[in-house]
């Protein structure tokens, strides 16, 4: 270990194990995305909470029919899709930051991030499929449980 500072300046980009130059705008875009998506999520989440829990009959109105009715409208499909994707990217990037800040060993980081990205993929793919392949009028169901526009 050299205990006396090597007075060479400027220092060449950090070499050595585990220290490659990692310049670029990626983290910059990530930082901006957290703030931009945060603002959008504020509107999306509170809009969602209001419509589901407060407006009209409030929380008592929620049943299969209510959800099916909402997802029959492209407006709510887009709203929920946006909320799903933004929250998942925002939350995943946030947890990625936390892993970088707290996990000390490279191996721990790799495992935690692997689990994180897997969870991200499962939720986003499943969620997106549900929003677009949702059948509001499954055949053979009792009519009183279905939204009003289902016929027969």
């Amino acid at each position: 270990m050299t205990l006396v500072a090597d007075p060479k300046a400027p220092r060449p980009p950090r070499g050595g194990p585990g220290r490659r130059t990692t310049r670029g705008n990626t983290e910059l875009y990530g930082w901006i995305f957290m703030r931009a998506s945060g603002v959008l999520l504020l509107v999306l989440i509170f809009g969602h909470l209001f419509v589901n829990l407060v407006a009209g009959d409030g929380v008592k109105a929620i049943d299969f029919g209510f959800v099916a009715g909402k997802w029959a409208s492209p407006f709510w499909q887009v709203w929920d899709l946006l909320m799903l994707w933004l929250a998942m990217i925002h939350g995943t990037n946030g947890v990625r930051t936390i892993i970088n800040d707290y996990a000390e060993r490279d191996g721990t980081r790799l495992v935690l991030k692997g689990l994180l990205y897997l969870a991200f993929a499962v939720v986003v793919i499943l969620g997106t499929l549900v929003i677009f392949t949702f059948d509001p009028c499954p055949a053979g169901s009792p009519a009183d449980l279905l939204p009003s526009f289902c016929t027969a």
Partner: protein
Amino acid sequence: MTAVAEAPAKVGEVPSFEVTLKVLRYLPDESGSPTVAHWDEFRVQAHGTDRVLDALHQVKWQQDGSLTFRRSCAHGVCGSDAMRINGRNRLACKTLLKDLDISKPITVEPIKGLPVIKDLVVDMEPFFASYREIMPFLITTGNEPTKERLQSATQRERFDDTTKCILCAACTSSCPVFWTDGQYFGPAAIVNAHRFIFDSRDEGGAQRLEILNDKEGVWRCRTTFNCTEACPRGIEVTKAIQEVKRAMITRAF
């Protein structure tokens, strides 16, 4: 606190009291086998005008000569004696004992996140490596002027705050992001980059922004304000970091 009863006190007399210093000691084994750090307690007779540094001197000079710490100017100028006093990063030479809770032992530890060499002395090399990386010197192009490079008072004011840094590492070693793996450039490097980026005479701003626009650069800052709180020079460190971030964003769009 045990005030020494020498009543009646003379007018203007400096009060004297006893304090306990609880110092984290670390001495690497000669054979290189790992040693565990341990706490040592020292009782010191101190005056109201004494600083933590004076108490450490008393211990070193009168009780245990093996106690090791850095200090040079003893007046808050050189930046040698940043340490963790009662859990907060400060300069031992700028921390008056009377301002601490002297009814309890005063804990003194080395600053965190840098390898400890002995007792309160840490290896500052990783800290200075980041400092060197941001190129802390004036960068210009073209011919050298025959007289000074002029600057208006307003232009000088723009980066005045960050000129005050004494490179004590109190900020960088107070940052939780730096503690994890020591890869983050750290607030001090950003402060010193800020000092040149916003200097109207300097032309290396774009280069420095590029250097700090790194995975381990300004974007690792989580705005916890530990650095601003730690800085013994009262530099608004977090604000300087945010200004560098903003400069990068305006450059990118």
